């Protein structure tokens, strides 16, 4: 691969990895607290819609962001109530949330904007603008590092940097604070937390709400950072890929960064090359497009082995049968 291509793919990788990363960290909080979440997709989708809709109406991307985050957190709350308060099946609740998001976004979009399932295109202050990092122009002449800094790292919207910063932040919260200790404990053995006098439900609710918040950022980035408006089903399976990345990352923040970059890279490659020539035969376009999905399966089957999820994950906490 020649150098400009590499730079270009790296740049695209970061853009595509960001929604995955935010969603993956969202899942990390929730699942570390023992609440499995296959509803990442749905939460991203509502966030994408509400951020685009409010940004379109008010002309302010920040108001849009707020609305998107609020919507994702509202959906997170449904999941929390179903799976924590009423001890429902977490997988089923997640599936329901995905459907609910898919239906509601279109319904409301049609009701508000009457443009099919679309919001009006966002322009100007209703979108996140790229940020040129300081010194990018000066450095761009330096060989190797220069283009990397100027073209790959610099020039993304603020949410990309927020996503990258969320990694160390998550690590710090999880492993260096009281809240993190309790959060990890409640995902491993809720009874231990309960007998220590801490409310299991409160902890899990906060974890699930943090998950909603991060999903909100991910969805808003899709609609107001990457694209300029909402379209039906625009998350296109990213929530599920994020989930696979989370498993691949063994529920650890830094690994999550690595695995999301990998998946972003796969998507970038599949965008960049419409067919891939392997010498012996050529991978046809349909399969290059499906490459991220195929590799997800390969990675889950081949490299992760039996990733050990948080021990109490998926099980509602019941102390009195």
């Amino acid at each position, binding site marked *: 691969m020649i150098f400009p291509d590499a730079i270009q793919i790296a740049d695209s990788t970061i853009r595509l990895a960001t929604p995955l990363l935010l969603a993956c960290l969202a899942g990390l909080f929730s699942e570390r607290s023992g609440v499995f979440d296959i509803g990442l997709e749905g939460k991203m989708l509502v966030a994408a819609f509400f951020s685009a809709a409010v940004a379109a109406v008010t002309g302010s991307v920040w108001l849009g962001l707020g609305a998107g985050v609020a919507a994702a957190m509202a959906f997170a709350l449904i999941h929390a109530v179903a799976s924590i308060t009423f001890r429902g099946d977490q997988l089923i609740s997640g599936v329901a949330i995905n459907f609910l998001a898919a239906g509601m976004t279109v319904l409301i979009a049609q009701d508000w904007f009457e443009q099919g399932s679309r919001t009006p295109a966002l322009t100007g202050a209703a979108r996140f603008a790229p940020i040129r990092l300081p010194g990018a122009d000066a450095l761009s002449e330096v060989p190797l590092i220069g283009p990397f800094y100027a073209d790959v790292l610099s020039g993304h919207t603020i949410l990309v940097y927020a996503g990258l910063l969320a990694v160390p932040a998550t690590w710090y919260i999880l492993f260096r604070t009281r809240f993190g*200790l309790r959060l*990890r404990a409640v995902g491993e053995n809720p009874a231990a937390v*309960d*007998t*220590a*006098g801490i409310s299991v439900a409160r902890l899990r609710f906060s974890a699930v709400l943090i998950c909603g918040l991060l999903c909100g950022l991910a969805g808003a980035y899709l609609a107001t950072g990457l694209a300029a408006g909402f379209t039906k089903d625009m998350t296109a399976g990213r929530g599920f890929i994020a989930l696979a990345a989370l498993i691949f990352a063994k529920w650890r923040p830094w690994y999550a960064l690595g695995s999301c970059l990998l998946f972003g890279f796969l998507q970038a490659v599949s965008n960049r090359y419409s067919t891939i020539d392997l010498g012996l035969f050529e991978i046809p376009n349909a399969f290059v497009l499906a490459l991220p999905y195929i590799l997800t399966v390969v990675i889950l089957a081949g490299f992760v082995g039996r990733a050990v999820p948080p021990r109490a994950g998926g099980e509602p906490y019941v*102390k009195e*049968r």
Partner: protein
Amino acid sequence: MSAPAIELRGISKSFGPVRANRDISITVRPGTIHGIIGENGAGKSTLMSILYGFYTADAGEIRIHGNRAEIPDSQAAIRAGIGMVFQHFKLVQNFTVLENIVLGAEGGRFLSTSLEKARRLLKRLSDEYELHVNPDARIEDLGVGMQQRVEILKALYRQADILILDEPTGVLTPSEADHLFRILQGLKREGKTVILITHKLREIMDVTDTVSVMRRGEMTATVDTASTSAPELAELMVGRKVLLRVDKAPARPGDKVLEVDDLRVVDGAGVERLRGVSLSVRRGEILGLAGVAGNGQSDLLEVLGGMRAGTGRVTVNGTALALSGSGSDARTRRRRGIGHVPEDRQREGLVMDFHAWENVGFGYHNDRRYARGLLMDNAALRADAAAKIAKFDIRPADPWQTARNFSGGNQQKIVIARELEREPDLLLVGQPTRGVDIGAIEFIHEQIVALRDQGKAILLVSVELDEIMALSDRIAVMFDGRIMGERLPAETDERELGLLMAGIADTGRDHPVGEVEANLAGTAGKRE
């Protein structure tokens, strides 16, 4: 006299249809060790969990040092100076000792400062009470004895003044238990109050000042230990006179049925659970396998029962068993005449949501007598179930009840009925009477002995030394995946078995306790 440390008045608690505690009142004097005894399911743990705020009572009131206390959650109990070591430890397995101890009592938002403070305090505490543990060890790498110390340290770290221990000795060797009791005496000297739950009468007689007896959810009596006796307590516990011996004729061992040679098992985490076990069982003989839980007995039963793979050589009636790959499954084992009463009936022995009649065929559902062409002959299975229910006096006598709806003892009877009725050449039995009341224990013991007298070979695993001593014709002791030694019941005693269980093979000498503990600390034994 000062106000009672604890006073419970009229406590009641139901779990759905089960009334675990009924109108219980009890008074505990400060600075004493107060014992609570009762059969399994009598409601002891429930009562203590209410005191600790883990459950909330349906009715009743709690007074601490004379003041009425509301204990809606464990935080309130901790504030009131109560600490509890649960029967099933509440530790986070992949956290370090230190992390477990500070959990919920961190004292600050950021961990590093809390952990440092805790480390210093922990050192002081462990020196003071001889509770030495490595603060940076992970719980999953510690033996159960060590885990229990962590639980005690947790309570002391929270400055508990009343300490509740729920069946602390069930998983300890006799010498570990002795060490625990010395610690409790130390706490008592400091003026702390201790509530000790156990169903071992000897422990009650040795260490408590007063004792309360529970039966079927009710408090039957509270007496000064000095003024009572073990038989009297036993009678209070079960409500009638109990036979503490099993009547059995001397064994007449025949040919070897089971021969195990150099059996090894490695678990999923790569830890070697069996490190070269060799033993044999003859027909007409019960071999009892003693040991502290987690030393490999369970793994041995699982390999022999076809539930997990191992390496080595095992023969039954002279022909070798496949230990891994095809033909090593439980179904093939059954065809080879091996019956298996598993250690955990609810997890393994029964499908809890199946009807009793479905469970009666569990594991034998491929039998030709339950088949009708391609389909299963449910009618035949139901008829068989009805017969077994009658013969083993399983109550309620309703084959349509789901297994979940039988009491523990009756669930066990279903399993026993199923496995014993097949008249297997070799019967593997794990913890046959765990959680079963004394009446049912007698019945189950009789059935096992009767099977032996038919000339079958029986391998019995139990953590209850009393049960091993009473039933076995030969006793082998396991420690850390190995057989430490074999003894005849008549030629040994609990003290010697206890040393073997602690990993001390040379029982001729008296060992300083410190060395025993050093050994135990290395045990990878776990408790679920």
